[in-house]
């Protein structure tokens, strides 16, 4: 806005203002009604939904699904969508930081005199786009599975044999999910694509013996898992060798 536009705005505004009503009691009345509505909503939510308290924090579990408050889902989801490692810092802080800086500086680069949303197509479109993107990411975040679980379908052969086999397979799935393999390996849709090879069908290439040898004596950077309890280790090997 140049000086003339500024003065014009101030003149217009002072006329509109002089035609208005005093803040007290007219605006105060509306604000008070709104305050009552807000309190009503909060009280209703509190009575209906209560305040649950989950199990006590346990830093030693790794199976727990971290879930932020729902209004952080969009940030969380941004992190999940952007996979290549070198892009991750960009996704987690780069994009939010840039958005935040743009938000702060908005009045300094958008300085046109026009205020009607339909006459500011760029600003309005961008605003709607950001809202839509955040809503979409929030939706994805709300419906996403756990980042610490392996959702591969149980192979038909394992299902058929049932009994100990099935039990060991499912237990092994838990061990794999809890032991941090997902940080380096992909199982189906879960886990990271590197640095290790995908394990979606390891059992096809490697027999159980080779797998357990790899786990005990792996090539770096993979850590050795020889210290896992015997039973867990065996279940893990069964699980992996059945992935065909």
């Amino acid at each position, binding site marked *: 806005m140049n000086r003339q536009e500024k003065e014009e705005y101030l003149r217009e*505004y002072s006329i509109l203002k002089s035609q208005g009503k005093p803040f007290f009691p007219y605006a105060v009345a509306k604000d008070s009604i*709104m305050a009552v509505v807000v309190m009503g909503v909060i009280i209703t939510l509190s009575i209906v939904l209560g305040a649950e308290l989950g199990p006590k924090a346990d830093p030693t579990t790794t199976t727990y699904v*971290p879930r932020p408050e729902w209004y952080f889902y969009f940030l969380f989801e941004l992190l999940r969508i952007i996979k290549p490692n070198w892009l991750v810092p960009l996704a987690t802080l780069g994009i939010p930081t840039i958005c935040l800086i743009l938000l702060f500086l908005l009045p300094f680069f958008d300085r046109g005199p026009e205020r009607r949303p339909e006459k500011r197509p760029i600003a309005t479109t961008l605003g709607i786009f950001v809202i839509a993107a955040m809503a979409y990411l929030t939706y994805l975040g709300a419906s996403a599975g756990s980042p610490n679980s392996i959702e591969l379908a149980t192979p038909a052969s394992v299902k058929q044999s049932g009994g100990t086999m099935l039990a060991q397979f499912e237990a092994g799935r838990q061990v794999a999910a809890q032991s941090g393999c997902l940080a380096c390996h992909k199982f189906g849709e879960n886990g990271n694509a590197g640095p290790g090879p995908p394990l979606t069908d390891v059992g096809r290439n490697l027999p159980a013996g080779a797998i357990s040898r790899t786990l005990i004596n792996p090539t770096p950077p993979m850590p050795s898992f020889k210290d896992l309890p015997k039973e867990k280790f065996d279940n893990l090997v069964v699980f992996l060798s059945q992935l065909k």
Partner: protein
Amino acid sequence: MKLKLPAPPIPASLKSPPRRPDEERPSKVEGAKEAGISAVDWVDERTSLSGGVRWMLFRKVPRGTNWAYTLGSATMFAFLNQAMTGVFLAMYYDPSATNAYESARYITNEAFLGEFVRGMHKWGSTVMVVLVFLHMGRTFFWGAYKYPRELNWVVGAVLLVLTMLMSFTGYLLPFDQKSYWATIVGVNINGTGPLVGPYLNDFLLAGPDFGATTLSRFYAIHMLLVPGLIAALIGAHLYLVARLGTTAPPWLKAEKNPELRKESV
């Protein structure tokens, strides 16, 4: 029967003059009103507050001011609700890694109306975040951040960040699985940030890792540092709102005063 109190022994110069026979005795209501007014006068004589209050309350809001303009004050009420319920939660809460969960459990299951108050605090935070975004949306789409209100937009943006920070630090406090792991993830995300990320983490966690004092640090940030900043900035925000006046809806055009138009013809 009327009880007559003995007159206090005050010097004659301070006593009100005796009533003249033709004067009416002031009614009780009037007396009470007088007392109220003189008390307010007493304060005002010593503070000159009335000018400021009048300035805040009897300013005009432009024609066309509608319900969308209540979103800001609604956000403020949500914040006041957080402050009130937070005080009650703080009476029972213990920010130590060993007792935090137990105190949260006590509040939820045993304290009188504990779950209700905790629920109001928890859902109040959601309501506040929603309202802050709605309010920001209103000011954004209506171009209310433009001249001369740029600075108020910046103050508002800081308030938005602080509100999110409140929610982030508060989420850890009940110290259940959910809050613990969400915080770990959040802090790790934060740590990957460019330049300041790791330092910010050191500050948040009170050390390189989640440790014994992390919880009390989050608590201090959550209940002293950030709310203080928010309260101060809401004050600045409202000062600017009153100083500059709230915008009129962008579609309104000022009708020139018909008197003026007549003269210019």
